[in-house]
């Protein structure tokens, strides 16, 4: 069972109260008119699917309704970072990899 504390309403939310939103940080091509087919394919369909640490987005859908960002390990489900949507992930890979 995935439990996440929403960084907006500060409540601990369970799977039943959350909506999973896939990979975080996917950027729409800045100028759609000049984006190539390959860039569009990347944006629309290709996904990071790491066996390990993954940055993803979740919605506090049965709570405050805000989208937020999570860094989670896809094997252990350990949570390393939970951020508001406008915050950037900090690079903690080297510092905490050993402890994970």
């Amino acid at each position, binding site marked *: *069972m*995935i439990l996440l504390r929403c960084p907006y309403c500060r409540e601990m939310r*369970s*799977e*039943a109260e*959350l*909506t*999973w939103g*896939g990979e975080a940080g996917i950027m729409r091509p800045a100028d759609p008119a000049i984006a190539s*087919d*390959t860039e569009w*394919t*990347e944006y*629309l*369909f*290709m*996904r990071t*699917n*790491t*066996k390990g640490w*993954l940055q*993803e987005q979740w919605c506090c859908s049965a709570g405050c309704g805000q989208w937020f960002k999570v860094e*989670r390990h*896809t*094997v*252990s*489900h350990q949570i390393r970072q939970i951020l508001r949507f406008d915050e950037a992930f900090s690079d903690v890979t080297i510092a905490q990899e050993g402890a994970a």
Partner: protein
Amino acid sequence: MGWQDYSLLSLARQGLSGNRGWKQAWRSPAPKKKYQVVIIGGGGHGLATAWYLAREHGIRDIAVLEKGWIGGGNTGRNTTNVRSDYMFSESAAMYDKALKLYEDFARELNFNIMLSQRGWVTLFHDQHQMESARHKLNWMRCNGIDAEILDRAALAKLIPGLRADNPRWPVLGAVLQQRGGTIRHDAVAWGYARGADRMGIDIIQNCEVKGFTREGDRITAIDTSRGTIGCDSVGVAVAGHSSVIADMAGFRLPVTSRCLQAMVSEPIRPILDVAMISPATGVYLNQTQKGELVMGAMLDPGQSYGQRGGPRTVQKVVEAAVELFPAFGQARLMRHWGGIVDIVPDSSPIIGATPVSNLYINCGWGTGGFKAIPVGGLMLAHAIATNRPHPLAEKFGLDRFRDNRLVDEGAASGIAH
């Protein structure tokens, strides 16, 4: 190697001699330095690929590499359902070919997979779903797939334990595909493994792929936990780990890996003699020949490579099963598992060429790969042997995402992922 068919004569002879004379059904060879074709993944799809490469294309210099043991992944851990009730004609043609190959499996490989075409029943719970049921009946028949609509009275006769008038999810009717049903899943892996082994194909277990040696856009060797193995071409059939192999080979896939759970009750007397799904409540149900109730779930939320799921999904499945069949409330769960499946945006498989010129892939079956094993093997073998898509696989290439020609069965047939 000795021919060890499970004939009445050999069963009697072995039985009288205390069953001490059975030999292993396939060898456990050490890997050679090089093979013409190396297939990564010793599940049903990988083993079937090896079999069809040998039988359809005469290629026998093949190794199948398996990280664990053959059929120890999703092939041996699924709800064992087979059916071909897909909407688009290209999907229906592909899945029905798989069902036909399963129907011929015992004749072709002399291995009993216990195919039981007991009927595949899709339940519908409200008026809108009943309209979609009539829609489904029409497109199945247009695709030449057998289908009929059952009303509540017919359902009550077919499935006596079903409480169609339950207050929470009343059942109004169903669509039946009579040729659908269940298979003994391990037997599929074992049958293909024995068949491939007899063709001289090396099945190498406990052999994990660590990386690739490349020359230009080709892979020349595979680095494994059992040494480096050279190859002319590579087939990949690793389901939930497809992105991991693609990362090693240097390309990306439109795949996310998700956990799919299923569970089994203790064995009880025969009560359910169809395989069924209730898409609206999120449960697949059938009863094995041993009497266990097999219950399949929808996907757990979030990407996952952890082969275990959350309790909320178990609760949802059991709730739905007990609501539909109140008598099941007396049974206890005996086993439960989570497998990792490869989900793609349009819920259709990806078969054939990749950006690496001599690497071919078979992935994206999502929650429904078991039913497709024979045709998955047939299509991947064709791609490896001829460097062209199999006629059934033409619409299912990786390039369909760039060309924006999706085969969206998720929307079309409303499949569960």
